[in-house]
């Protein structure tokens, strides 16, 4: 029998104060990057035109820019896309219609003789209305996801667990967005999908730990044990499952990242980061917060009882 852990008894919860520092540091790093470097939104959210072109020989960005400059679209973003011969041109919203923009780009690039033959492989146009709606939808989707999770856990377990789980998920979302911002990747619809998946995944882990805690509490052995130790037991007992599952999702994400093509790369990147932070946050954000909250409440109750006893 291959085993990663045999009856693990690590003191996770005891070291939670250090973990808070780490969590806050990463969250701050993400926030600072989001504030200073910002997040690049894909045209899905800003509106605009995206044109994917494949050239017969690898061209230089400067030649492409020169071609676009002649039709007054030099401010467009030009990016290599997964292959030296493949490029994406993004043009912000203008008064021109999508047909007009793509026709002009095609003509301008065809005129630039040194570029050789080319094939337009994809054209996407998102109007200003749709872009705004998608932005709103993205925010709604994330918040609806969080509320759904909060309600589910509050009903199945308790409010403390629900709030702590949502804070953990929020932490994961911030870290993922921070990672996107630091690496200069785009926030697109597939990335949004990945973020929502991470929300589900992170909560999954948390629920497994909570479930175990609840199951243990019914047993005689836990009687009189401090809550922090009970939680630590639950985390340890589910540790091998947590690590194994995280590893499989981690493998899946890594493979998508490597072989899924440029279209799935950003999606896989978020999953990749999310799996790590999601696994971490289960113990060090969700479980740790529940412990501190419970201790706080118990402490107050205890002081209250003493006061009553004195009187």
């Amino acid at each position, binding site marked *: 029998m291959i085993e990663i852990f045999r009856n693990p008894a690590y003191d996770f919860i005891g070291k939670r104060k250090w973990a808070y520092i780490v969590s806050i540091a990463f969250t701050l790093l993400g926030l600072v990057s989001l504030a200073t470097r910002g997040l690049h939104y894909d045209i899905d959210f800003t509106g605009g035109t995206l044109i994917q072109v494949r050239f017969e020989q690898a061209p230089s960005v400067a030649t492409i820019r020169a071609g676009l400059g002649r039709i007054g679209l030099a401010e467009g973003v030009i990016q290599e896309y997964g292959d030296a011969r493949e490029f994406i041109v993004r043009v912000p919203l203008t008064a021109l219609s999508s*047909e007009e923009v793509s026709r002009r780009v095609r003509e301008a690039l065809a005129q630039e003789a040194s570029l050789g033959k080319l094939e337009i492989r994809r054209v996407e146009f998102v109007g200003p209305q749709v872009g705004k709606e998608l932005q709103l939808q993205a925010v709604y989707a994330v918040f609806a996801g969080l509320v759904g*999770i909060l309600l*589910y856990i509050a009903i199945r377990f308790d409010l403390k667990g629900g709030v702590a789980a949502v804070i953990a998920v929020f932490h994961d979302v911030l870290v993922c967005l921070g990672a996107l911002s630091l690496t200069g990747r785009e926030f697109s619809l597939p990335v949004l*999908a990945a973020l929502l*998946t991470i929300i589900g995944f992170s909560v999954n882990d948390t629920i497994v730990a909570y479930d175990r805690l609840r199951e243990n509490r019914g047993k005689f052995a836990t009687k009189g044990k401090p809550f922090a130790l009970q939680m630590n037991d639950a985390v340890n007992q589910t540790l091998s499952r947590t690590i194994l599952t995280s590893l499989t999702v981690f493998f899946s994400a890594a493979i998508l990242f490597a072989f899924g093509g440029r279209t799935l790369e950003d999606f896989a990147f978020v999953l990749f980061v999310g799996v790590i932070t999601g696994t971490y946050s289960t113990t060090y954000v969700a479980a740790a917060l529940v412990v501190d909250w419970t201790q706080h409440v118990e402490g107050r109750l205890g002081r209250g009882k003493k006061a009553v006893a004195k009187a």
Partner: protein
Amino acid sequence: MRRNLGTRIGIVVVALLGSLWYLYPPAKAINLGLDLQGGIHLVLGVDTPKALAAQTDRAAEDFKSALERKGIGVKRVARESDTAFVVELSSPSAWNDALTVASEFSTFERKADDPGVGRFTLAMSERRARELADSSVRQGVETIRNRVDQFGVAEPTITRQGEDRILIQLPGVQDPARAKALIGKTALLEFKLLDERASVEDALAGRIPDGDELLYSRRVDPQTKTERKIPYVIQKRTLLTGGELNRAEVQSDPNAPNNWQVSIEFNSVGTRIFGEVTEQSVGRQLAIILDGNVYSAPRINERIPGGRAVITGQFSVEEARDLAIVLRAGALPAPVTVLEERTVGPSLGADSIRQGMIAILASAGVVALFMLLYYRLSGFIADVALVLNLLILLACMAAFGATLTLPGIAGIALTIGMAVDTNILIFERIREELRVGKTPRSAIDAGFARALRTIIDTHLTVMVTAAILYNFGTGPVKGFAVSLFVGLAASLFTAYFFTRLLFDLVYMGRRKVESVSI
């Protein structure tokens, strides 16, 4: 759970056979999204206010001629908003007669009466305006479907989206620009008389006579490729529209072999009106106007009884063919604008399929290998369950007619990870029970029983997220949500129910179980 073995095997066999039934033949079973097979995805916004304005314009024209027929002098009839027009009589004395005429226009309500100056406003009721806006979108969907059918696209999707949007998906279309022009053209064909008395110079200077409008004919010089605009002063009143057409055919221009033209034939109503109009206006010029552009303005030499006309322009054979299609399919009741467009070339789609398949196979392979090494026989059982999971997932997508998109493939890859998670939960639980000294049989029982609640919780939360994604997301995100949701539902069945059945078959049949390969 140990009992009912027969029933449980039956359920699995039915699920397996059902899946295979839906997946046969494999090439046709699953709809590929536009991102995988190439094609156009368009979201059009219908300009419903324009449709209302056009309706109001027509009503204003009709009202004016109704008054004139009754001999009531009219000073001014003008549209005030999209749904209302103001009427000003030459003299207030005709007030009562005018009100009688107004009462015949039952879809418009009279407002802002001012009998002193003989002025009132006719406004469409809000309900009527809503109905009109709604029907203009519905009609738009029908018209576009007609056009696309005649253009010849296999399995197009044309549906209404929300209040005033139309979603169009055309898989495998090779010439997106042409398809878009065909779909988006309003194609309002109108016949109006030229106002020969008005001076074009005055109109260009901004002095357009009341009841007239300034329209242009656009001609491209074949040598210099420059566009020339020829102005015409035209009476606003529409005599006849393309709504009365019976046929529209492409023919070659007898005078210029490379120029093509479209011959049209009116229906009986159109033929009668066309006959009357040409009879009454012999010697005048009749403008043929398409979407506000004058195509030609031939002089009427005599009454034209047969209801036939020809639209000439500098058409290529394709342009003429597309024009004939849009004329046959009818005009859009309101102009449309492109709100969102996604066009994927067929070669990119093929690349995406290949990469997606590689990713999914690699991901499934690595995970399966890992399970086999780590859990041995139990891992093998989990792998068999994984195969059934994928089969059911794909079969469900085929059965619901769901579309497989690139993000959908990602969703499947993720499902694999989640399905395996279920088995890991169970197996770790069984190992734990074995460690505390339980017999293999009771360890299996306890492992499955204890893990069940956790499994349901984890599945439900992710399914909740997937459902939210589906409701809030658009195209690509929806595809992801669908495959994730279906995959998780299937995983509850395969990773729990089916795995349990296999465990029972392997371990429960024997009299004494010494150990579990886990």
